[in-house]
C-alpha cells in the first residue's frame, strides 16, 4: 500500500469513528433511545431531553475540533501539510 493510500485510509478511519459518535449521540440518544434515557435524571434535566436539546450540539462542536487536531497531526506525519 502506498503512503498516500495509507494516509487516506487513516483519514477514513478517523471520520468513521467520529461520525459513529455523531450518530449515537444525536440520533441514538436524542431520538431513538430518548424515552429510555428520559428515565434517568441529569441535574434538572431528563437525560434524553438534555442530549436532544443541549448534549448533541455540544458534542458536535467537540467532534469537529478533535478531527481538526487529528488531521493536523496526520498531515504532518505524512508530510502533506501546508506551509
Amino acid at each position, binding site marked *: 500500500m502506498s503512503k498516500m493510500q495509507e494516509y487516506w485510509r487513516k483519514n477514513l478511519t478517523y471520520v468513521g469513528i467520529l461520525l459513529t459518535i455523531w450518530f449515537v449521540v444525536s440520533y441514538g440518544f436524542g431520538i431513538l433511545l430518548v424515552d429510555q434515557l428520559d428515565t434517568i435524571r441529569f441535574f434538572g434535566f431528563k437525560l434524553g431531553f438534555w442530549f436532544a436539546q443541549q448534549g448533541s450540539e455540544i458534542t458536535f*462542536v467537540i467532534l469537529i475540533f478533535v478531527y481538526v487536531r487529528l488531521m493536523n497531526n496526520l498531515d504532518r506525519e505524512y508530510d502533506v501539510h501546508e506551509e
Partner: protein
Amino acid sequence: MSNIELWTWIIVGITFALYIGIAIWSRAKSTGDFYVAAKSVHPIANGMATGADWMSAASFISMAGIIAFMGRDGAMYLMGWTGGYVLLAMLLAPYLRKFGKFTVPDFVAERYYSKTARVVAVLCAIFVSFTYVAGQMRGVGIVFSRFLEVPINTGVIIGMAIVFMYAVLGGMKGITYTQVAQYCVLIFAYLIPAIFISIQMTGNPVPQLGFGSELSDGGGYLLDKLDGLSTELGFAAYTGRGSKSMIDVFMITVALMVGTAGLPHVIIRFYTVPRVRDARSSAGWALLFIALLYTTAPAVAAFARTNMLQTINDKPYTEAPSWFSNWEKTGLLGWEDKNDDGIIQYRADTAVNELSVDRDIMVLANPEIAQLPDWVVALVAAGGLAAALSTAAGLLLVISTSVAHDLIKNVIAPKTTEKRELLYARIGAGFAVVLAGILGIYPPGFVAQVVAFAFGLAAASFFPAIILGIFSRKINKEGALSGMIVGIIFTAAYIIYFKFISPESNNAENWLWGISPEGIGTIGMALNFIISIVVSRFTPAPPEEIQTLIQNIRIPRGAGESAGTH
C-alpha cells in the same frame, strides 16, 4: 416618538452605518475578491461570517418560539441545523477548498467532466437560494414594522438599499466582513435578554445551566414545574413525547443536517479561507458560534413558556403585566373572554382557550417580560435585522456568482474578460437584490412553505454528488447526473403533491412510511446515492485525468497553488 423607538433608530442607525463603512473599506477589485474574498479570510472570522450567513431571521426570531410550542420534538431543529457542520468539516469543506475555484457547480462540472452537470447544479443552486432569500427580505420588513412602526414595504426597501450597497460593491469580501459585524450584533442581542431572564428565574447567569436549575422562587426544578403546568392545562408534558412519530423526527433531522451540508451559500464560505486546514477549523469555529445561539434558544423557550403559563394564565385581565397590552396591539397576542369572567384562561382545549399567542413573541417580547431597559429592546431589533440581512446577502452572492461565473463565463460566453465578468457579477447581484425585494414586497403565498423544503431539495441533489465525487473513484458523469435528477424530481414531486396538489391528504396515513414532506429529502438522498452507484457500474468509468483530480483533492498540500485566478 417613544423612548424605545428612539433607541431603536439610534442602534439600528449605528449598525447600518457600520455595515456601509465596512462595505466601502472592503471593495472588491477582482473576480477572486468578489466570489471568494481572495481566499484570504481568517478561519475564526470566516466562522463568524458563516454563523451570520447561516442564522436567518427565522433562527433569530422564530426558533425559540417554535421550540416553546413543540417541547422535546423541537430538538429536531436544534440537532438538524447544527449536525450538518460535522458533515461539512469531515466530508466536504477541506476537499472543496483543496479543489479551489469559486463555486459548487465548478466542482460538479469538473469532477463529472460535463457542462450538463454544471447547468443542472446551477439551476438547483439558483432555485434553492431564491426560495430562501424571499423569506429573508420579508423578515427585514417585518422587523422594521414591529419596532419602528414603518410600513413593511418601506422596511423591505431600506433593507434592499443596504444589501445593495455592500453586496454589489464588495461582493464576497464586503459580505464577509459585514457578516462578522452582524454576527457580533446578533449574538449580543440574543444573549443579553436570555442571561437576564435566566438570572431572574433561576439565579444562574448561564441560560444553558439555568434551564436545568431550580427556580429561585422555590418551586423546584424549572423543567419539572413546566411539565406540571403544561399537563395541568391539558397540554402534553413539555419534556415528553410530542405529536410527531419517531421515524418522522428521525427523517426530518437527517434532511435538515444533510441539507445544511448541501446548501450552496454555506459551502461557498469554505472557499474563502487560505488553506485546507483552515477550512476544517473554520467549520469548527462556525459551529461553536452557531451553537452559542442554538443552545441558548431551548433555554429561552423553556423560560418564556414557564413565564407565560405562570404570569398570564388564570390572572384577571386588569392585572396583566404592561407588556401584555403592548403586544396585544401588534396582534401577536390575543385575548377573547369567552366565559366573560375577566380572567385570562389558557388551555389546550380550543373550546375554552381564550389566549392566542404568535410564536415569534417568545423572542421579541423577552426583554419587556424581563423588564430590561429600552436599549435592550432596541438591540433585539438590530439583532433581528442583522440576522436577516446577513443571510440575504450570502444568498444573493450565490445567485450572482451562479449567473456571472457559471452561466455566462462557463457556458454562454467563455471569452468574457475578467473585468467584464466582474461587471456581470455586480449587475447580477443588483438584479438579485431587486428581485428578492420584490418577492419580499409581494410574497407569493408558497414562499414560507417552500423555504422549509430547500433543505430536502439540497439534500437530495448536491450532497450525494459531492460526497461521491470525493470519496469514490468510480462514480461517473452518467451516474451523478441521473442520481441528481431522480433525487430532486422525487423529492420535489412528493412535496408538491402533498403541499399543493392534494393538501387535504397531507397526513401520516397517506405518507410514504409515515414520512412527512419535510423529511422526504432523506429518501430522495438515499435514492440519489443508490442510482448514482448503480448507473456508474454499467457505464464507462471516469477518464484518467479525473482519477488524478480525485487523488489531488484528497491531499491538503498545494491548496495555495490551485487558488489562482482563472
